[in-house]
């Protein structure tokens, strides 16, 4: 179920005064089961990129392959593709419309043509996966808190049982606790199922902790595509395009500059703590 993009270009409003080259020659392959982060500054083309993955927008130039098949081929079912590649937009709670949470989550499976009991079964399953409390199933989605709305909306996509889950800034506008909860839930989802998860964000801190690969977008092109550690080692270049490495990276680099023999690789607070402890132990051993 790999996704492959070959020389994808996308231009908004071509041949008008508002022409904008949003994607430039994107080549990319995402194997099945990977947990990928896409990072970029506002307007770097990350949202445009992910809309190509389920065929919502058609590349001006280039091809997209899903599971080895060209999705622009005649007769390729985009509807089928969209139930395989679930896309959760930014502020997904703005798409809620039904009278109750459960019914709203059923919308996706219903469109897949499943029977009523099957829809409900999948909806309940999806709501459970995102940790949505059961007592609110029959409430109007408009009466929920921000975090719960977000969960309900993500469940709305999960209920279609996609093989690939793409989330566009799932934590935008949430408080720190809501943010951590949602991200932890997504990480758990990835480890429990064999889903490919693609997480879009502009915050390195959010992503560093969870993903195994980071794609950095800048002005419509891929700038880096590597493991988090390797990407963050370019922290100066990242700064020059308006992004930043996690604060831990800065601390580790600063410590090393001051003469502490630590590795600069850690990207999360836990790893950093371990690295510092290790180097302290080593030093102490030498002293002793």
């Amino acid at each position, binding site marked *: 179920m790999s996704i492959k993009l070959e020389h994808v270009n996308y231009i*908004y*409003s071509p041949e*008008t*005064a508002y022409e904008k080259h949003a994607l430039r020659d994107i080549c990319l392959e995402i194997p099945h089961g990977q947990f990928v982060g896409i990072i970029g500054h506002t307007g770097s083309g990350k949202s445009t990129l992910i*809309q190509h993955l*389920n065929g*919502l*927008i058609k590349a001006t130039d280039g091809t997209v392959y899903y599971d080895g098949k060209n999705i622009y081929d005649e007769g390729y079912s985009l*509807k089928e593709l*969209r*139930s395989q590649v*679930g*896309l959760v*937009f930014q502020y*997904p709670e*703005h*798409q*809620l*419309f039904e009278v109750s949470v459960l019914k709203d989550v059923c*919308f*996706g499976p219903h*469109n*897949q043509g499943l029977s009523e009991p099957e829809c409900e079964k999948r909806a309940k399953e999806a709501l459970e996966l995102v940790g949505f409390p059961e007592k609110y199933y029959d409430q109007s989605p*408009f009466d929920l808190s921000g975090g719960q709305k977000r969960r309900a909306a993500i469940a*709305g*996509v999960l209920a*279609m049982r996609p093989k690939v889950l793409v989330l566009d800034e799932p934590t935008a506008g949430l408080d720190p606790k809501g943010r951590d909860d949602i991200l932890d839930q997504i990480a758990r989802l990835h480890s429990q199922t064999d889903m490919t998860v693609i997480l879009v964000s502009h915050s390195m801190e959010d992503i560093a902790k969870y993903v195994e690969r980071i794609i950095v977008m800048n002005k419509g092109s891929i700038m880096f595509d590597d493991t988090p550690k390797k990407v963050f080692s370019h922290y100066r270049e990242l700064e020059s395009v308006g992004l930043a490495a996690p604060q831990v990276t800065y601390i580790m680099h600063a410590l090393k500059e001051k003469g502490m023999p630590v590795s600069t690789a850690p990207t999360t607070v836990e790893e950093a703590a371990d690295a510092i402890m290790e180097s302290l132990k080593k030093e102490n051993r030498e002293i002793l």
Partner: protein
Amino acid sequence: MIRDITIGQYYPADSVLHRLDPRVKVVCTLLYLISLFLFKSVPGYTVALIFLGGCIKMSKVPFKFIVRGLKPIIMLLMITVIFNLFLNPGGAILWSFWKLAITEKGVRTAVYMAIRLIFLIMGSSLMTFTTTPNELTDAIEKLLKPLNAIRVPVHEIAMMMSIALRFIPILLEETDKIMKAQIARGADLESGNIIQKAKSMIPILVPLFVSAFRRAGDLAMAMEARCYRGGDGRTKMKPLAYKCRDFAAYAVTIGYVIAAVLIGRNIPFQIWFF
């Protein structure tokens, strides 16, 4: 998808026409539109063509954009031409079939009507190409100010207009987003009969209305927070003020109207080309 629809079709460029006071543009466009109906002759339209051509040249708006503006009226144009062609008895009969006949007068009227319509649309779209919607409402507010005397709430009307115009692209974008989100959830917006189609709009309309009301509430709050209380005693950040070029533009337009009317009405011109 829906993004390609532009209502305010402003074309950003740096030209004399863009810099003119919007009031001048509104008034001159009106004068130009009226002038088109004051004559009906080849030399008159030649003068109008020169004037229009000069303005287009000065505006730096690519010609194909202005022609594109004619697309929506092609049907109207065809209907006008056909009706005028067949339903104008008088003059020599050029071609006849059953009860339908094309007369010389019919051809003439049809061509004049087509030219008028095309000039009309091109002229008014030139104004919208060179004036932002906000400038336009500013101009209308200023021009209608005298109506305040008879208790027409001019400022409030202008404010509503500019808010409405401002929100068209926002709501379009919102619609686009919601449509995509629902399509991503497998919504089928195209197939089915009319009732099914109407039903399939619910997942789009409900969130759209919710967000429109939310935005309206937010905007009202923001306006109140900045002590907005209607038009009385309110000054503008960029007050409209006439400059030399604006008077020059008035003069040129009035000159055009006089010339076109004089040439178009008085000089007989018998050459008919076809």
